[in-house]
């Protein structure tokens, strides 16, 4: 893994996404407080923390599902104001939701092209839709019986494959996975991690929200810990261990946050 050390040099590579001082409140509840997040191209970032730490909220602010109260979201250094996930998709940000956000009543191809079904004249170009869907699934190495299968008849792992296929068919630069392994069997989890590595080889940056540290330590480059709406830690996977991350999750404070590079420097010192 030579790429990893290249990434460690931090400021050398231009950041793909930078979130600065994000705050967000739901009524009296302060869900996010001055959170910073950086993501380099091709990097896999693990986002961990207790329930209600603000992980999903942060991601939804990034994709435009929620509107932030203050702070900046920069993509390629440009400030953005996404009003819906649809707009962030244009900039190459894809989110795979915990419940996959698929329409069970429609078949696999229709779901992969949800909302942007190819058309010929007035009508949906079904021939092209099914052909392209087949191709995307092949690229992902997912074997399903047929692209005509209704999604509600698929198992959880297969449904997730469809959700991922949907995401990568947009040729994204960032894929956000919200608790991707929560509903999966061991086998399916393993296949998902392979898929993530495959995506990384294609240069797709990924953010994975998970409770399972082992998964993140398997594929991740960097891990970010959140607690009560604040970032309390940022470490390189190579230079940390599960014990330290658990310590941060339980008793991290904004002072322990640092950046991964600062943490590395502190460790070396």
């Amino acid at each position, binding site marked *: 893994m030579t790429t990893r050390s290249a990434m460690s040099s931090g400021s050398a590579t231009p950041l793909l996404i930078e979130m600065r001082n994000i705050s967000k409140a739901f*009524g009296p509840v302060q869900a996010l407080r001055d959170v910073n997040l950086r993501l380099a191209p091709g990097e896999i970032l693990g986002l961990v923390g207790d329930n209600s730490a603000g992980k999903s909220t942060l991601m939804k602010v990034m994709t435009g*599902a929620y509107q932030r109260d203050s702070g900046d979201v920069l993509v390629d250094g440009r400030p953005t104001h996404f009003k819906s996930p*649809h707009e962030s998709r244009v900039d190459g940000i894809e989110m795979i939701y915990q419940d996959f*956000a698929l329409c*069970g009543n429609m078949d696999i191809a229709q779901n992969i092209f949800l909302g942007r079904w190819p058309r010929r004249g007035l009508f*949906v170009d079904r021939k092209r839709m099914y052909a392209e869907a087949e191709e995307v699934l092949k690229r992902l190495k997912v074997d399903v019986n047929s692209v005509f299968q209704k999604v509600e*008849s698929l198992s959880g792992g297969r449904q997730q494959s469809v959700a991922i296929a949907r995401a990568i068919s947009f040729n994204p630069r960032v894929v956000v996975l919200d608790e991707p392994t929560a509903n999966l069997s061991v086998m*399916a989890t393993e296949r998902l991690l392979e898929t993530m590595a495959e995506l990384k080889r294609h240069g797709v940056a990924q953010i994975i929200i998970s409770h399972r540290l082992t998964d993140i330590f398997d594929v991740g480059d960097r891990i970010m810990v959140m607690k009560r709406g604040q970032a309390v830690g940022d470490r390189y996977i190579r230079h940390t261990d599960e014990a330290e991350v658990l310590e941060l999750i339980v008793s991290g404070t904004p002072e322990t946050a640092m950046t991964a590079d600062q943490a590395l420097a502190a460790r070396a010192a």
Partner: protein
Amino acid sequence: MTAISTAPPLRRRLPFELIGGWEIGLLAFMVLLYAAGVVINPKFFGQPDAFSAILRDTARFGVMAAGMTFVIVNKDLDLSVGSTFGLVATIFSIAFSKSYYDLGIVASLSAAVLTGLAVGLVNGVFVTVLRVPAFITTLTMLFIGRGLVLGLTGGKTISYSEKAASDGAWFFQIGETNALGFNNQILIFILVTIVGMFALAKTRWGYETYATGGNELAATYAGIPTRRVRMRGYVLSALSATLAGLMSVAQDKGITSQYGQGAELIVIAAVIVGGASILGGRGRLLGGALGAILVTLIDKVLREGIPMTRIVKVGDAEMKVQGMAQLPPGAVPAFLGLILLLSVLIEPWIIRRNVFPRLWARVRGRPLPPVIEVGGVAIEGAQTKGSSASDRSMRARGPIGHFLARRDAAAIILAVALWCVGLYLRPDFWGSIDNSFNLMLSFTEVGLLAIGMTYVIANGDIDLSVGSVLALSAATCAFLMKQLGFDPATAVFIALVAGAAAGVVNALLTVGFGLPAFVATLGMFYMARGIGAWLTAGRQLSSFPEGFNLLGRKLIDALTYFGVAPARGSLAYDLAAALSVQTIFMIVVAIIAGLILGKTPFGQMIYATGGNRRAAEYAGIDTGRVRAISLVFSALCAACAGVIYVAFLRSFNPSAGQLRELDAIAAVIIGGGSIFGGYGTVIGALAGAAVIALIRALLSLQLILGNGQSFVMPQHWVNVFIGLILMVAVVGDVWIRQGDLGASIRRRLGGRRSAAPRTAS
């Protein structure tokens, strides 16, 4: 108010739970309203016993509201209370009356109570065990109950004041004024309210109800038997309707077939005005009781009218004429429908948003209490569906297998089979041109409504107002031509605009204000019909220009009118004689609508919205727009049907399109639509419409019996039957198509053989 307290005082007192700020506000509002009534109409409201009379009339609604509160807090709905009320009164009257069964008072009462109990249990079983949506179950029950009342009484009035004097005098005391000077019904009302109030606020029954309504899943996880709780709600609601029905027969000592009509509207509006949320989990019983008084009061004000003096000029002399400015028939349900809709909006938009506390804080210059943001989640909550159905089309083999795997296969087979039954029963008549023509006609009306309904059901909504919108547009059209002398083209155009406007209101309420579609369209169900009856003042209008009537004629008539009729005896002539203009119109609409739904991206958007609205939204589909367009399209289809109705019958009758919403929903469900959304095709809906039209034709077929006599089933019983068909269709959809009951039975029977590795990974 000099010292500003920094910390809120500690509260040691437990929350009172029986009454809150909303109820106090309601009381104040009612006092004001009554005072206004006294000022405006002293003749009625000024009298000392008027107050007692209003309370007496409220009593029955108040008792029903007590049961309904349980149902609504459970996050359910019971539309059948009005017809249960009527049915119970009818059963009692038939059992008790000398001209029918002439039973004793106890036996009659038992029959009545058993009927009520049965209705409650049936509602409960369908909703909880068979998982049919509450509004569809109870709406069907409403129509079945109404059909039973009409069928049992034959539309006649029953009276037994003589027998009541001798037998069961103790029972009929309920309807009398007691020694204290007020009606005993008020006593029952107060008693039921107090008992119910404590049961809901202070007992485990009540806590279970709030938990079930608040989050049924969480309640189930906590070990609360939510099915039993919801069942209990329905039984309580039906029993309170039973009590109300008995109170009413005790007072009137007789019934008319109109008993209880529209009562569900008043009762639901009462409970919602009382602060309960149509979204479940909130509401107090006292609020429902106060709401009942308020709504009855409004109803009274509307019906009693306002006295006014008009100055009439007779020649040179000016005369003062005393009169009552009364609302015409139909206006009252229109207003009540409006009140229902407004009150449903109260909870999510005023109570939950802290509007009044915020206003109060602003007046006092205090910091505003926060508005609770729901984080982009619509107030009706996210819809998530189970994914139990396996994909049968993947297992299908061969052309027959593929046909059978279609969701609309059953409807097509059923339509053909029913047609064959007709041929078997009346071979002399069934296949004739005449009968086929009539079949096509009734098919056209249901078909047109079903096409629009398909769109609405496919994207997960429902439109209960199609029958009423049909009446509204028919009334508009007839009224404009007859009373205002409009030319047919303009009249038709305005009628269609009126129908579309009703659809726009539906769309605004569901999409804009986030109400569940069945509530929004239920309000329109009452309002549109009310406005239609209002326009025509309840009269029947007839004789329109012949050019207009052509819309409802045979094609050959239209061609002859324009002077382009083909030669008699030619094939074109026969064809034009068998087809009617409206059927052609319907087929054109069906082809266009079918192509859009099945082949275009917009059609896909509809299915996506119905399948998983959130997923569709994330995919960039404007689901609000999709749903709004569907609702307006449905209303427009209904409006077209209304115009055709007038043209075909050459007259307008205020009962136009009654029960048609049931026919249309049944057609779509039979034709492969799912009541939960995401499915439905135009072809299927047309096949379903054919099934409905054929069933109606078969049931009203004159049968020649063996002994030479003939038999025709009365129309009321036909309606009961159609209600049953709808229930069977929905249950079949929920259990056989969605739950794939067939496969699970096969799996159970097949055991090892079919333990296929289909569920791998």
